[in-house]
């Protein structure tokens, strides 16, 4: 493999990893704080994409500039977080925090099934495509290969921004510290007057916004169609488990591993590309059962 191909595979891997990371980030945040593995995350991702496409289509039909699709992505993501994430936590998850993890997981699975049909009822079955945001940024050519600025640069920048932004938010803001305190010991946090319910609601909404944002950012690059959420959820599970559940920086590393693994596989041995995320997950967990960055808790006797 010569250097050019190596670099090409690297670029592809990074832009793919960036998108996967943004989605996995919300999943791992919710798990880290609430100990819930949210299967409906995939649906929120899909709905974020659908909402962006619809809003952008509407704005464009009014004859407004395509650049507006960028703020619309953010608006869609927030809408998903507040209108869907909020009620899911408030109406459903709140009732089951004392139930076993697996029942919680099944509740989110049920929400996933329901939202899959909601998407179909609202947006139908025909694929949507809305690439105006992608086209607005144009292309860049490297080693004779054309990349879109959107995928190669914007997605990576957004991913980095979210990573460092979330780190800063959790460690240096009051709300962030409240979240961290609740994560470490819910009862202790409540005893010093933290409203854990509100922290959970807030966290879930932030996680859902991240899922929606992932979908919104993915929307100009791909067809929006039924079933897109199911694939994404399995992939981001692999990222999150490889990283160690609840590990934010770890998710970035795992997303890169999986993204690069996949793109190098396409250059070297395309037939195994689809296996790569799972192989990496199994190999990592074989060596480190708690994930790359997870910490194992020794049982006290």
């Amino acid at each position, binding site marked *: 493999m010569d250097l*050019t*191909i190596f670099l*090409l*595979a690297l*670029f*592809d*891997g990074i*832009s*793919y990893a960036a*998108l996967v990371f943004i989605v996995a980030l919300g999943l791992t945040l919710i798990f880290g704080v609430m100990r819930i593995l949210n299967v409906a995350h995939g649906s929120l991702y899909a709905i974020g994409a659908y909402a962006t496409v619809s809003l952008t289509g509407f704005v464009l039909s009014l004859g407004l500039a395509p650049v507006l699709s960028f703020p619309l992505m953010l608006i869609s993501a927030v809408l998903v977080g507040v209108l869907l994430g909020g009620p899911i936590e408030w109406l459903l998850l709140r009732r089951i925090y004392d139930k076993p993890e697996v029942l919680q997981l099944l509740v989110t699975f049920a929400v996933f099934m329901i939202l899959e049909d909601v998407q*179909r009822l609202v947006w*139908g*079955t*025909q*694929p*949507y*495509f809305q*690439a105006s945001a*992608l*086209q607005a940024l144009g*292309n860049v050519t490297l*080693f*004779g*290969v*054309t*990349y*879109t600025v959107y*995928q190669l640069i914007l997605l990576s920048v957004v991913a980095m921004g979210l990573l460092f932004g979330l780190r800063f938010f959790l460690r240096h803001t009051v709300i962030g510290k409240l979240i961290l305190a609740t994560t470490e010991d819910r009862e202790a946090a409540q005893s010093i007057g933290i409203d854990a319910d509100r922290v959970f609601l807030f966290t879930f909404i932030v996680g859902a916004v991240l899922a929606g944002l992932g979908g919104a950012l*993915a929307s100009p*690059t*791909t*067809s*929006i*169609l*039924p*079933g*897109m959420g199911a*694939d*994404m959820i399995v992939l981001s599970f692999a990222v999150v488990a490889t990283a160690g559940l609840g590990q934010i920086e770890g998710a970035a590393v795992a997303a890169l591993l999986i993204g690069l693994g*996949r*793109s190098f596989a*396409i*250059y070297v041995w*395309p*037939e195994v*590309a*689809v296996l790569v995320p799972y192989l990496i997950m199994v190999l990592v967990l074989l060596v480190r059962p708690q994930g790359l960055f997870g910490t194992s808790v020794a049982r006290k006797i």
Partner: protein
Amino acid sequence: MKKLLLTTAICVAMPLAAMAADKPEALKIGMTTFLTGPASVFGVPARDAMDIFVKNLNAEGGINGVPVEVTYIDEGAGAEALTSEYRRVAETEGAEVMLASISSGNCQTLAPLAEDLKVPNLMWDCGTQRIFEEGSYDYVFRPQGNATSEMLAAVAYLLKTHPDFKTIAVVNQDYAWGRDSWDIFRTALEVMKPDVKVVGEFFPKFGAPDFSTEISRLQALRPDVVLSTSWGGDLDTFVQQAFQRGLMNNSTFVLPLAESSLERLGSSLPAGHVVGARGDHYFLHPERRDDADFQSFMKQYKEATGDIPVYSVFHASQAFAALKTAYEKAIADNGVDWPDEDQLLAALKGLEFQGLGRSLHMREDNQGVESQLMGTSAQAGEYPFATLENIMIFDGEGLLPPVGETSIDWIKGLDASFVDGLTVKTYEN
């Protein structure tokens, strides 16, 4: 009306001519189609079209006075639900004819089942050529072509329009259709233009949301031709991403199923790429677009759905036409009010019928002979999406292996003269 009079006359003349079945209250048919899942891009339009066909026919009084009722079965609900529901509709609801299915996998499951249940089954959309090449059936018919005729038409059109290409790469969906269609295409290319080099073979997983890496590789490989038999969201994503990154300026794309994506792709499918339609299916069919039945359907469909019809609508029209024609033929041939099953099967054998495309007929192995329409994309400006120019319609007969031969073996015995031996009509647009 003439047929009806004839039927009545025969009935009067030979009252004891045949054992007739009682005329049912309604002709119940079951149709499997994707209402959920990615393939609902074909399934839902076909269902919408079917509703129109049935409504129109029943408004005219149905078949010999018998109205038609369709029960739809969702192929997206999974294999168990599909087979149990298929049996329920065929056995309990008493459907006389079944139309199944879109997915080739489901056809392979349901064809033997139909044979066992002894219910006539029209395979209305699935592409796999294997069914009749690997088994013989009395109850299963296919009122359409198959993967072999579809791929050979694509090869022939490519060789006629781009005789000088040297390299080809393929990006197909990773499932049976993507693999089988490439097998046929490659085998044909090897015998008809042996100097072509295959420089890349990619089978991204079904429903892949991103082809960036494949496109980067294709840009580095610079093949003359890029083939993709993908469909639905996969095809849309691939073409959009390829278009965005300029790949479509360097390579000619051959997209045998792109007719079903034209409207969605909009301006992202530039001029000069090869588009196919799994048969002679095109909402501006050069031979049919001025016909009254064609135009009135297009209008009804647009009113009902707001879209232009895609090939699955044409396939549904063919299956429905085959069904209707077979019943009418059986009634006429036997001089009965309503045919029994054997009479219906006899009528289906070698049946000639016409849906929204050219007229078709069934071969002795129950495989339909369907013409194939190929064209080149053009952004003419009349529609906000690409339309076709330099359209060729190939006669179906020459594109199928003789009865009893398997496609791949037959294609291996062909050579470069095959293309010139085909019957083809060419239209500007």
